[in-house]
């Protein structure tokens, strides 16, 4: 198909604003998926994605649409993830498109995330088509939100499409707008072939599959290909398009998107953002890539049952096959034994990985408090990256500690401004700006990432009854007065419970930590003192008193077996506890430390 009949576009939308439903409708309307085969939300294929209603992996689907001009067009819909943790994937998708549908819930209006992604699209010279979804809802206010969306992209309010993906109303008009308004690709068919890798997945049978947007030239099955950044040479074992299942086509030409089966076995070998060219006739210059994804949040994952360690390693290896952003390395803890220090894109990513490990691989895990990557300058002038509290050098060897800061953009209705500013101040935020956007305020703060990863998002939501939305980007490292807060159980430091905190917060954090542990650690045969300390200085202390009575009341002939079985059940319950030195610590104790901020005082 000539490039004039190709349209590459993506959808920008906030979670729950209806992106997946719209995508489903498009597949249905163009006959790519029959009514009968229609599984709701075809693009969100992972169970967890479906459950949480979010999209994690970007994918590209090709459909054919016969427009009102009588011509048939090839439309390539490139999916984008909707959550802040995965914003880097959005920039990938945008780079492969000439247009974007900006989908906004007609009852909710624009959210911070959408705003940020829309700016990205405009900067990338994409044609943005505004769409108000869910106009069938009683609470829909298409006038108000339509005006705001038009303002945002500098368009006429009349050009804002009004649809209901749920009922199917207006979908045809969306496709017409894509054909009319999104510019066709303008690659050079005769130039040396170049394609941008915008995503990759690991397929059990085919190995690593690259999703590509061909910019110039033509790729054929069997071509020897070179990755221009890494220098890696692969063969295109198969080449095709997602329609919506993998369909071999034998070639992909300039303007098209599709997939390449590379024969690689390790997802990490292929760098998303790299440019592919043909070895035989290489392109002179690589396409502009995008920044490499770096994990932002780290935590230790340990099996509750030490025997599960090899299984956890296997599971992480398998997960990594399809999640190049997940990093992990072995870690050992005195308290928790052998486990892995893992790096994630954000808290949601961490939650998802943990849930998948527990659910799909049937592992019981303990996670340490998440932390960010600190930069420590030693008194010798050395700069050390610190990803775990245990890596922190002794205080006397530290000249300076820096931590990553992010610029947070928060959109909130005016009556929530006070609550949001209070929260940001409490979390060591530095005010940047505030300005009205449609009927809401846009508040910008610079904040330590460490404060965000703890529970900021949950707090933000609960303090604004769910109305605030958040976006953030890293702005760099800044010096902070940070200290290592230790927890001692029965006199011994529990390395897995240590955390790096701001000096001003150490006392409240330590006190709360001790209280939480005091409430969750059951009474045992001996007294268990719980202490929080910085260096040798004790900040807080509680003691779980030794048990004073623990007997099985009656035991006669009839219930000897029952009593023995009761002991067996009690023992089973103890297995879910972690033996830390002489103390049995239940899993909830570790979890309670994680959820340190959920009792309403914000710390």
């Amino acid at each position, binding site marked *: 198909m000539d490039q004039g009949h190709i349209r590459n576009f993506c959808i920008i939308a906030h979670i729950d604003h209806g992106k997946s439903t719209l995508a489903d409708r498009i597949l249905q309307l163009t006959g790519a998926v029959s009514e009968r085969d229609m599984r709701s939300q075809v693009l969100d294929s992972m169970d967890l994605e479906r459950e949480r209603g979010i999209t994690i992996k970007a994918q590209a689907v090709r459909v054919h649409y016969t427009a009102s001009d009588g011509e048939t067009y090839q439309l390539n819909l490139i999916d984008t993830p909707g959550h802040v943790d995965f914003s880097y994937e959005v920039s990938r998708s945008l780079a492969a498109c000439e247009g974007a549908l900006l989908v906004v819930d007609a009852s909710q209006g624009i959210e911070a995330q959408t705003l940020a992604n829309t700016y990205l699209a405009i900067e990338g010279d994409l044609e943005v088509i505004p769409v108000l979804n869910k106009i069938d809802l009683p609470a829909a206010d298409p006038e108000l939100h339509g005006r705001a969306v038009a303002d945002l992209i500098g368009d006429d309010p009349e050009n804002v499409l009004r649809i209901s993906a749920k009922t199917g109303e207006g979908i045809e008009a969306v496709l017409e707008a894509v054909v009319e308004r999104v510019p066709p690709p303008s690659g050079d068919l005769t130039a040396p072939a170049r394609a941008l890798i915008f995503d990759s997945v690991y397929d059990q049978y085919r190995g690593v599959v690259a999703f590509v947007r061909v910019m110039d030239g033509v790729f054929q099955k069997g071509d020897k290909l070179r990755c221009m950044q890494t220098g890696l040479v692969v063969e295109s074992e198969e080449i095709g398009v997602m329609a919506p299942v993998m369909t071999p086509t034998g070639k992909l030409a300039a303007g098209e998107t599709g997939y390449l089966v590379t024969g690689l076995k390790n997802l990490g070998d292929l760098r998303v953002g790299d440019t592919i060219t043909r070895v035989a006739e290489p392109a002179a210059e690589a396409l502009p890539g995008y920044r490499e994804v770096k994990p932002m949040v780290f935590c230790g994952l340990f099996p509750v049952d030490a025997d599960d360690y090899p299984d956890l390693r296997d599971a992480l290896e398998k997960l990594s096959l399809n999640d190049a952003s997940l990093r992990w390395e072995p870690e050992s803890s005195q308290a928790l034994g052998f486990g892995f220090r893992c790096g994630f894109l954000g808290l949601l990513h961490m939650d998802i990985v943990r849930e998948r490990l527990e659910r799909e691989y049937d592992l019981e895990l303990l996670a340490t408090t998440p932390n960010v990557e600190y930069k420590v300058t030693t008194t010798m002038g050395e700069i050390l990256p610190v990803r775990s509290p245990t890596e922190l050098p002794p205080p006397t060897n530290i000249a300076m500690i820096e931590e990553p800061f992010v610029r947070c953009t928060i959109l909130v209705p005016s009556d929530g401004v006070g609550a949001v500013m209070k929260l940001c101040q409490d979390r060591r935020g530095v005010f940047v700006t505030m300005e009205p956007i449609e009927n809401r305020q846009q508040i910008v703060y610079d904040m330590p990432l460490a404060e965000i990863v703890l529970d900021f998002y949950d707090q933000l939501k609960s303090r604004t009854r769910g109305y605030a939305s958040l976006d953030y980007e890293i702005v760099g490292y800044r010096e902070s007065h940070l200290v290592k807060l230790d927890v001692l159980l029965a006199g011994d430091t529990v390395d897995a419970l240590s955390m790096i905190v701001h000096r001003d917060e150490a006392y409240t954090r330590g006190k709360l930590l001790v209280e939480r542990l005091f409430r969750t650690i059951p009474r045992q045969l001996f007294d268990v003192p719980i202490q929080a300390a910085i260096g040798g200085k004790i900040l807080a202390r509680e003691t779980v008193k030794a048990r*004073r009575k623990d*007997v099985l*009341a009656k*035991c*006669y*002939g*009839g219930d*000897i077996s029952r009593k023995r079985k009761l*002991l067996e059940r009690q023992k089973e319950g103890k297995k879910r506890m972690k033996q830390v030195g002489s103390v049995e610590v239940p899993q909830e104790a570790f979890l309670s430390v994680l959820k340190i901020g959920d009792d309403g005082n914000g710390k």
Partner: protein
Amino acid sequence: MSPVAHLYLHLPFCSSRCGYCAFVVNVGALGRRDEYLDALLAELEGERAAGRIGELQTVYLGGGTPTLMRPRRLAALMERIRPHLAPGAEVSMEANPESVDGPALAALRRAGVNRLSLGVQSFQPHLLSALDRAATPAQARQLIACARAAGFEDLSIDLIFGIPGQTADDLERDLAEVLTAGPDHVSWYELELKPGTALARAGTPAFDEDEGADAYRRIVGGLEDAGYGWYETANFARPGHECRHSLAYWSAADYLGLGVGAVSTVGGERWRNAAALDGYLAALAAGEAPPRSREPLDADDVRRERWMLGLRLERGLPLAWAGPPDRPDALARLSAAGLLHHDAGAVSLTREGRFVQNAILHELMDYA
């Protein structure tokens, strides 16, 4: 299979079910009590024919409310047991204050019952009503006097602590009543909120550990001061009045249990008669053994049960008999902590250790 020296007979009938009761009892089936005794005798005959009944050192008639059975039929049952009794055998029976009177007690004594266990539970009216007990404190006091008058020289009373609404003062009053009544033996349990009981269903909160510990310690101290030995976790006796039948359980001896829901342990095998009255009566009327579920005990089960039972006793357990604990290194640690005595091949708990016996058991053994 070697013959047993300890026999339990279950008499399951009750006029009502108490709020804390999780035993196998039958309410509103009194019309079948004679039929039941016939069946019980048939089961006894079957066991006798199988050679499982040896010279009986102890017999225990428990319930239910055994005193709801017709005295004449009970006497007939005792007639059948008498030939198997060893000289000086202990023959115990449970009785509830509201279901028995002086003449009936005298008849039981004549029939050969020589030890009486009275289900008093408390002397405080509001606590009795919290437990759904039918008897009044006055009836309990009167029954104790009647039992003495009937010639019972081995008298035990059962009490419960940790009853919803029970204060420290209530406990003091119960303790004083017990000492005034002067039984030879006292069983004093903490209320257990077993699943399925009316109290558990009503969402009764469990006693706080410290409250329970205070009450428990007060009971042990009060009874010991009055000359009762704390010979088992929840049992106290004047010297020489320990319950020999219960001691057989706690020493993991073989025993035979007859009647609905009764359990037997003989020669490394345990079986439990099914709890349903109908099935039991039908099987025995048809000349068959009652429906039973069997549970083989392996060497580890036996060893772990011996530890579980032996540590309940003040005298502890001989290591040669019980076998080694699963975690022998814990012995020294617990001994150093003052919770356990470990010498000359025997292990027993210290006074402090006995209050946390269950936790110690988990330190020593792996129940899996």
